[in-house]
């Protein structure tokens, strides 16, 4: 293990040298490079880390702050394997509310609705109102931009954002960037950020210290998981080139309704489970359509992701938690 760790650090050093970050910059980054290490050891291959029993008590302990990612609520979907997606979203919120450390905010990485209907957004709003964290940051999924090019989404969830709904904000020293890669998709392509957004991103990151931890979040994965199913973003490479100089970059996505993780240099990629229905692993089914699972299994394949940041120390913990949890008071509440 120590050898492995050393190798990783050596590799990080090499990467940093290539990137022209000086030694001082590197040392400053180390707080965050260290955070990547824990991940690197379990990353590289798709890994699902469920809440272990007893996790709950220490979750977020000592962290400077915690936030939660939820994704793909698909309110309005009513087919197998989940005829009641509102109930499973409610279970996810109950789970968040039961966290021993209240998250500072929630990030929803898109597909709030199934068909962009006002009633679907209304239902989502109603359920989210019950969350302990009042601040929710959204990016749209393709299901939220049907018919009206996302106008309704922008009105409801994108006030003050740029373009089709992208924006950034800072929270306790971490720079968060919400990106939209579901608008103006081209025939035959995958997700797309587009020239205007990329320019904005370059500008948004310009001048920021390389030691600033960066969190990028968007609906469709910003790394190519499975092109045949469109599970990637055509111009994500360019976006990622802009964050290369930073010491710690975390990329959070949804869309594929399952956990996938990858670490590339100082960039950690992560996709979240859906709160509505699971999708098959890449290439294991004729299409990416909803995966049908027995009713008693459903809550094992839906879930939330919480991220604990410890700025002063060296830890970043991303924990994926299925809705099903024998020890959780929330588990009984989904219809």
């Amino acid at each position, binding site marked *: 293990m120590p050898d492995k760790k050393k190798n990783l650090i050596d590799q990080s050093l090499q990467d940093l040298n290539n990137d022209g970050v000086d030694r001082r910059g590197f040392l400053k980054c180390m707080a965050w490079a260290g955070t990547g290490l824990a991940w690197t050891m379990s990353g590289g291959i798709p890994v699902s880390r469920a809440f272990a029993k007893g996790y709950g008590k220490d979750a977020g302990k000592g962290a400077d702050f915690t936030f939660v990612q939820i994704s793909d609520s698909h309110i309005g979907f009513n087919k197998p394997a989940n005829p009641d997606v509102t109930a499973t979203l409610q279970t996810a919120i109950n789970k968040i509310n039961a966290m021993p450390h209240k998250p500072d905010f929630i990030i929803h990485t898109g597909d709030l609705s199934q068909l962009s209907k006002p009633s679907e957004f209304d239902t989502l709003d109603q359920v989210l109102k019950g969350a302990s964290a009042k601040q929710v940051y959204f990016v749209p999924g*393709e299901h939220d931009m049907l018919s009206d090019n996302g106008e309704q989404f922008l009105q409801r969830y994108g006030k003050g954002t740029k373009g089709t709904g992208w924006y950034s904000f800072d929270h306790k020293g971490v720079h968060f960037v919400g990106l939209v890669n579901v608008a103006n*998709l081209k*025939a*035959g392509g*995958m997700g797309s950020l587009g020239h205007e957004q990329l320019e904005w991103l370059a500008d948004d990151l310009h001048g920021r210290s390389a030691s600033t931890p960066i969190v990028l979040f968007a609906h469709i994965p910003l790394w190519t998981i499975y092109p045949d199913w*469109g599970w990637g973003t055509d111009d994500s490479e360019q976006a990622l080139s802009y964050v290369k100089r930073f010491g710690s970059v975390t990329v959070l996505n949804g869309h594929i309704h399952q956990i996938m993780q990858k670490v590339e240099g100082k960039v950690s990629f992560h996709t979240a489970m859906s709160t509505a229905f699971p999708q098959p692993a890449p290439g294991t089914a004729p299409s990416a359509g*909803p995966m049908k699972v027995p009713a008693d299994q459903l809550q094992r394949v839906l879930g939330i992701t919480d991220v604990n940041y410890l700025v002063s120390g060296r830890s970043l913990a991303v924990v994926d938690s299925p809705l099903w949890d024998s020890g959780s008071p929330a588990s009984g509440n989904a219809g």
Partner: protein
Amino acid sequence: MTRNNMWVAGVGMPVLIGILLLFAVSPSVKGSDQPSEANAAVKIDNFVFGPQTLTVPVGTKVTWTNSDDIPHTSVSTEGVFKSKVLDTDEKFSYTFTKAGTYPYYCTIHPKMTGKVVVQ
């Protein structure tokens, strides 16, 4: 209806093309000619337009039906036609009055592409 669609989309296609070629019907006649009563179908199933290339005579009404649990659209790449969002079992029809090749895709899942060849 379904039988007819299947005939046109499947077995009938080469025959239709053959007939058209035999009679050397000029495809460049302006869109003013009355569409004949031909129908053809595209089924959206498992995130695929089937058949991916549909060849029909001028005047054919093509109907797309979404058989997936996930919404799709059928939108001309060149802006010729545009369906609303098709939820499960919903349909969209467009009558092709001019010869040409009409590529289209699902704007929600742009990997899904197809084309209609009108002769």
